[in-house]
């Protein structure tokens, strides 16, 4: 449906912008001259890896994300097996990734792999979704995922329990650091990028928090030390 609105809108914009607007937001602040990065004003982020992990854990606790520490890949496998037992999983969705492939197959459960063609209905029936991620964000308690790192766009949101297997080295400070990870990995950010910050939630009824509105009711991070 071709139309000439693009040119019309651009023309109106250029006409409107011929009159300058006052830069009122700069009044009373040192924003222009301070030499700070904008994100410096957000909640502070520590620099040492141990403190980053501690902050991530603290924020996760507030968000009701469960964090389990695993000394190595073998420990992650046994934690995942424990999660499968505790939650009585019958089948899981997953994809092929460095920390996960062997761990998931060790479960001995049917697996729907979402990095190869799959049916949405099959994934919908899974009790857990197990994925990797690009990085963990300490400042917000967030998990950055892309199609490539987390088995597509759906795996991390459709099954009722999302488990992320990440290494401690994947911790970064804030969102700007997370964007830097994206640029380093992919050149420019890919077509699907999502920050997951806690299990799905709503407060739409009487402003009372309910977990598992449409996405996962539970979110677990298995944090592998080595």
């Amino acid at each position: 449906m071709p139309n000439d609105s693009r040119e019309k809108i651009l023309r109106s914009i250029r006409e409107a912008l011929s009159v300058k607007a006052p830069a009122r937001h700069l009044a009373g602040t040192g924003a222009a001259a301070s030499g700070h990065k904008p994100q410096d004003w957000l909640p502070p982020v520590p620099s040492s890896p141990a403190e980053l992990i501690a902050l991530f854990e603290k924020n996760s606790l507030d968000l009701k994300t469960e964090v389990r520490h695993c000394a190595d890949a073998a420990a992650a496998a046994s934690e995942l097996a424990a999660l499968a037992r505790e939650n009585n999983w019958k089948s899981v969705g997953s994809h092929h990734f460095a920390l996960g492939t062997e761990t998931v197959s060790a479960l001995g459960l049917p697996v729907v792999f979402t990095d190869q063609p799959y049916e949405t209905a099959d994934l919908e029936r899974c009790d857990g979704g197990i994925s990797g991620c690009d990085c963990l964000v300490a400042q917000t308690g967030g998990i950055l995922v892309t199609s490539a790192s987390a088995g597509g766009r759906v795996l991390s949101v459709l099954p009722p329990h999302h488990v992320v297997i990440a290494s401690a080295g994947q911790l970064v400070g804030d969102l700007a650091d997370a964007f830097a990870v994206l640029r380093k990995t992919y050149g420019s950010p890919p077509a699907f990028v999502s920050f997951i910050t806690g299990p799905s939630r709503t407060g739409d009824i009487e402003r009372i928090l309910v977990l598992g509105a449409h996405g996962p009711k539970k979110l677990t991070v298995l944090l592998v030390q080595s």
Partner: protein
Amino acid sequence: MSTESAQFHRDADRLTHDLRHRAWIQKALGGYYVKRDEQKAKYTDWQQARAAAAAAKYEAVNHLDKYLVELTDKLAARGTKVFWAADGAEAAEYIASVARDAGVKRIIKSKTMTGEEIHLPQALEKAGLEVVESDLGEFIVQLRGEPPYHIVFPSMHLTRGEIDGTFQKKLGSAHADTPEELTMIARGVMRQKYCEADMGISGANFAVAETGHISITENEGNARLSTSLPKVLVSIVGIEKVVPKLDDLAVLLPMLATAGAAQNMTCYNTLLGGPRQPGETDGPREFHVVLLDNRRTALLADAEQRDALHCIRCGACLNVCPIFKNIGGHSYGTTYQGPIGSVITPHLRGLQSWKHLSFSSSLCGACAETCPVKIDLHHHLLQNRRNAIEQKPVWWEKPIFAGFAWFMRRPRLYRFAAPLLRLTAPVLHAIRGKDIDPLSMWTRTRDLPAPPSQSFKEYWRDRNAKR
């Protein structure tokens, strides 16, 4: 008085006197204040963060042409179709044609205020399509046939009992007692709808020119599901949503969460830059972005109020507004309620029909103080008042003030007349607020203070005489 104004006055009057409604809203917002302050306290410097957020939006809005073209090119590079719509009708027509071409029957929508603004669901239903809202609050008000009460908390005015009643009546569900049970009923209904829908519709909170992504902020996961399961995705984006750089989101996403929902960060913040790419196994086959003007360029042309386009729709100004807290969201009769709605609605839908909203303000400035992107809201309300009067002066104002000036320039007449006013006071007091009271417009809802027994002039004379 415009019909919109008459309706507003009727609704506002009714709801202001509804004490149950007022108590309910105060209670709902009470928790928000506590949590918001907790979150704000975590910031290194909230005021500087506001300035930084405002600077990012200022740069975007004041170079809007450049960034929109960049956004369009970057989106197109990954196979997204970008459509520029001058108004709501053009946008709805385009989206209906996309649905027709793709053989779409069922649409799942995730909350979009821009879609609400142009009555998109109604237009698509008219075109014979099923449109289901997936955001819980929006779903509830859709079932009840109501508009959203608040731009961020659409169903905040309803009790669990009312929602239970709606679900029983419209969904045939069993009685449920708790918000959790009610949420799970909606979750069950929606799971089906996601899998059946062949088209998803979303809004956007931001659009990043540098990388060609739209950014969607949510808590429930409904936007993630509606944007990844159906084969066709349409996102409707107001042209003012663009930001220059990806790093701008490093500040804007946490601030939107803190100001809007008293959170550190909302649950899902998703960047969409294209349909399913080579090597991807899921995601929509088609992705359309509709860039909507709908008179935003008219607001842009008002340089004085241009910063109203900085708005990130967090709803923080509604939450602190004494007017909103008393008259509630529905009284406004607009898509955007509260101070921001009162500022922008006259620009979007006509100054003379909507000027009354700018007069319904205590000018306390709480809105401007809380705004995370530093919109000068209460001054814009004053500017709307001034513009409305300049455009269409009130016929009796000029003679009244001319008469007043004439009177005040005659001290003798003043000295003679002022004591007379004191004599009329008992009469005025007796008829106060009644139809025969010439001041009834004021006195119907307000007190008339008794005039002092002595004028200042008399007092001054006596005081000096005693010395």
